[in-house]
């Protein structure tokens, strides 16, 4: 709501979207809505205005009002405290009401590596299943003659499934047989 010369003491109601500027009808006065905060808080450390929460507990807008020559007013005005920022100038401006606009935020990303990740996941899944569930028994035995002592040296190694009890028994048997 804007009051002043040519506007009258009753004032005129102007609708200004955030980021837009509107000329008050019949005057050269322009009103710009710079920013909206739903729950106004002035951070004294950073000296900046921000919202305390997402709720609409203390709605405020930053308004700049100017004519063709000067800036008449520039500052925060509050819906819940209409008289707080009436300045001792010819014109005054107050925040009377507001309406919210429904918007949807969309995040569009490019992910060129996703095919590789799919490949990796398929590979890892197959790998985990092979390691744990596919039965396998492999035994390696190396037999060589030790030239210095003239003895035959037998080295054995094996790979089995983690819970293959029969393979462990077999392995124990091989160890005993080789030992004898």
């Amino acid at each position: 709501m804007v009051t002043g010369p040519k506007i009258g003491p009753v004032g005129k109601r102007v609708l200004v979207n955030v980021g837009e500027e509107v000329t008050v009808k019949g005057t050269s006065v322009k009103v710009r809505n710079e920013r909206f905060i739903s729950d106004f808080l002035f951070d004294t450390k950073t000296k900046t205005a921000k919202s305390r929460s997402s709720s609409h507990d203390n709605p405020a807008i930053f308004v700049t009002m100017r004519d063709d020559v000067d800036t008449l007013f520039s500052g925060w005005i509050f819906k819940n405290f209409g008289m707080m920022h009436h300045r001792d100038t010819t014109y005054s401006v107050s925040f009377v009401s507001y309406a919210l606009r429904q918007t949807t935020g969309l995040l569009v990303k490019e992910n060129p590596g996703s095919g590789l990740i799919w490949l990796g996941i398929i590979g890892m899944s197959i790998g985990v299943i092979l390691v744990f569930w596919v039965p396998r028994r492999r035994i390696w035995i190396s037999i060589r003659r030790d030239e210095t002592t003239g003895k035959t040296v037998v080295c054995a190694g094996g790979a089995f499934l983690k819970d293959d009890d029969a393979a462990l028994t077999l392995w124990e048997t091989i160890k005993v047989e080789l030992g004898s």
Partner: protein
Amino acid sequence: MVPVDITLFWWSLIGFGAASLCHILFLVISRRPLYWCASGVMAAATVLLTAAIIVRAVAIGHLPVTNMYEYLSLFAWSAAFFYFVFVLGFRQYTVSVFIAPVVFMLIVSASLLPKEPNQQLVPALQSVWLQIHVTLAALGEAAFGVAFAANCMFILKKLVASGSFVKRFPSFDRLDIVSHKAIIIGYPLFTVGALFAGAVWAEQAWGTFWSWDPKEVCSLIVWFIFTLYFHLRVRGWRGGKSAVISIAGFIAALLTFYSNMFLGGLHAYN
């Protein structure tokens, strides 16, 4: 009027309670017919729970795994399934005595949760990955539950060495092998189902493979615990030490299940 699936669920709960009681009696009295009676009751309760899950699935038009009650029902069913795997497949009769109370504990936990079905799924849940991810995770965690049962017997046998009923427990080696077998079944299921399938689905639903959601982090901790279990077995850890790690893993899995209740996050759909 109480829905049919809920009625079946309550009957299965009574069945699992009776089966647990019969199993404990078998441990005390040690009469083979009592064991087969317990297994019969267990089978009947499992059939009732299977019917409850199928009836609910038909009623809501998708696999009932979209809230905590439904997941716990599937978790209990999976544990009951592994009970029969270990009884019929591996002939581990005495170990199964401890699996029945684990199933009963899970079904009682499910009974305490709200049972209203989700007729209209949120967009993130409308995916085939829901069935793959949740079913494999439940099966994996149920297998960890079997290991938990075997390891509880191990610890009990260790602590109550002179007790009469612990003499009927399998040997330490046998309990260690059963626990190891269960984790070998559960670990790949959990890895592929909870982590890999979960990551793929998360990418489709939320646009990122990993978002450090509380449930994701807790699942990763469970996976690390069981990975540590395997690593330490390679280093020679057996018996009591690996039993403690396995028990810690299952407790972490249960905490993971409840984590979104306390910590919220993307998995808190209710």
